[in-house]
């Protein structure tokens, strides 16, 4: 299936349920009112993005790096660390040298 067809099918499915699912994946709490407002906004933006489907990209490799650059390897030695207090300095809650979070019970 050409990319464009998949894209046009994709955009048709954005409803309140989808927006809630996406917000949940993004870990952002949303109210019913916010969802209602986001549905048309989402469809507007996705509809606008849709014009990409007009471009023939058959046989084109997706761009990986804008400027040719090879990934460097460095020596496998410790160059940083031993900064526990610095790392914890901005934590909303830190206890006994750890980040503290609400109890996690599954």
């Amino acid at each position, binding site marked *: 299936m050409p*990319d464009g067809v*998949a*894209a046009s099918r*994709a955009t048709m499915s*954005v409803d309140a349920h*989808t*927006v809630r699912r*996406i*917000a*949940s*994946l*993004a*870990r*952002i*709490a*949303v109210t019913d009112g916010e969802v209602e407002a*986001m549905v048309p*906004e*989402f469809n*507007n*933006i*996705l509809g*606008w*993005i*849709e*014009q*990409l*489907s*007009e*471009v023939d*990209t058959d046989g*084109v*490799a*997706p*761009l*990986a*790096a*804008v*400027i040719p*650059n090879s*990934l*460097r390897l*460095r020596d496998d030695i410790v160059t940083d660390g031993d*900064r526990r207090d*610095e*790392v914890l*300095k*901005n*934590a*909303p*809650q830190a206890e006994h040298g750890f*980040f503290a*979070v*609400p*109890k*996690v*019970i599954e």
Partner: protein
Amino acid sequence: MSDLTDFGVTALRDGFRKGDFSAREAADAFIGAMEAGRPLNAFLVETPDHAIAAAEEADRGRAVGELRALSGVPLGIKDLFCTAGYQTTAASHILEGFVPTYESTVTAKLFGAGAGMLGKLNLDQFAMGSSNETSAYGNVISPWRRAGDSAPIAPGGSSGGSSAAIAARLAPAATGTDTGGSIRQPAAFTGISGIKPTYGRCSRWGIVAFASSLDQAGAMARDVRDCAILLEAMSGFDAKDATSLDVAVPRWEANLSSNLNGKKVGIPKEYRVDGMPAEIEALWERGIGFLRDAGAEIVDVSLPHTRQALPAYYIIAPAEASSNLARYDGVRYGLRVLPDGANLQDMYAATRAEGFGPEVKRRILIGTYVLSAGFYDAYYTKAQKVRALIARDFEAAWASCDLLLTPTAPSAAFALGEKTADPIAMYLNDVFTVPASLAGLPAMSVPGGLDAQGLPLGLQIIGKPLDEQSVLDAGLAIEERAGFSARAETWW
């Protein structure tokens, strides 16, 4: 002595070296202007102690013959750069109170070169915006006003605090960052110069991330030479950024030349968009005349995929943002919202709901959607393929020219509130700046003139990878011929 806030980077550096004034005098002058300029809301945090300490060190250094590249020059720093010991928020509520324990590579280089910091500059939240209206700490107001009208004007975005501060003479120069036009568009809106170098020239280490394959730091200042000086101090290889380019930093300032003999400048026909205001067309024609007068040969070129650059950008940038901004979880730094009886997942969701502004949420959600199972190829892969075609368009153009000349933005600055209702109308503001960002190319905006309402208009020069020199040279050629001397009247 004339008012030191009228001095740019070159004049401050050289005047300080000659002994015309002390670094402390220069710092004090700008600190005074910064305080008087508070109605513009350009600074989120004022750091006069930093500017004064750097100035006093510069003065002590001068006494024993030690002069560094930026000794005597105070700067504004966009609040996207982490600054050790000074709050860094990216203009977001979610980072309120965050005080980095480390210094970004770019600011470390600037301070190492002797510059001091006047303060942290306001911006669009996480650099997402084109008008500085998405900041959690209020709009920046441009010092410019339409003739006979006091309606507050947008300073552009996302580096709107930087552009406003420079145009209002609250700072001689400032850092900016550019993901899709965030240096060039605000520079154009406020009648100053701004350059985004080749992707990889400036280290991204310590810059709050938005879209990592596009984010690039750059220089904003009153003129082209000042931009060259600042960019030279900011650039250079950094092992801490995997995309940093391991190439020498040219001596851009020393090599500046407005003689464009032998240079070919391409005029991309696709940038003549429908409904382009006549004033923008006229500005472009003026720019073409300037470059021809400087010795350049003007050639017509085609960049066939220009129209698709914006939609590709608005897939790629939100996709990368949704990934980068996943780190704001209320655990390690910044805001934590913990409703009664909330578990860890609830805490994440509540923290992010309260901490992020509406435009940031919009982009995270769009990004999450285009990366979600089943849609990744249709959106993200497709956009990266289109991006490859856009990069190829530029490569093909370089076969017949050395530089491209375009308007920077499709209009002069708009009034605050004029475009906030429609996200896409706001996104369209970046139509001329986004393509060069997608291709990682160096590009700069320089003032070209005023529109009929008295607001500045900018011309954009785009260059080949790593050829910032030609971009700066063409910028200088325009600057010398445009004779842009207008400045905003002080009303604040």
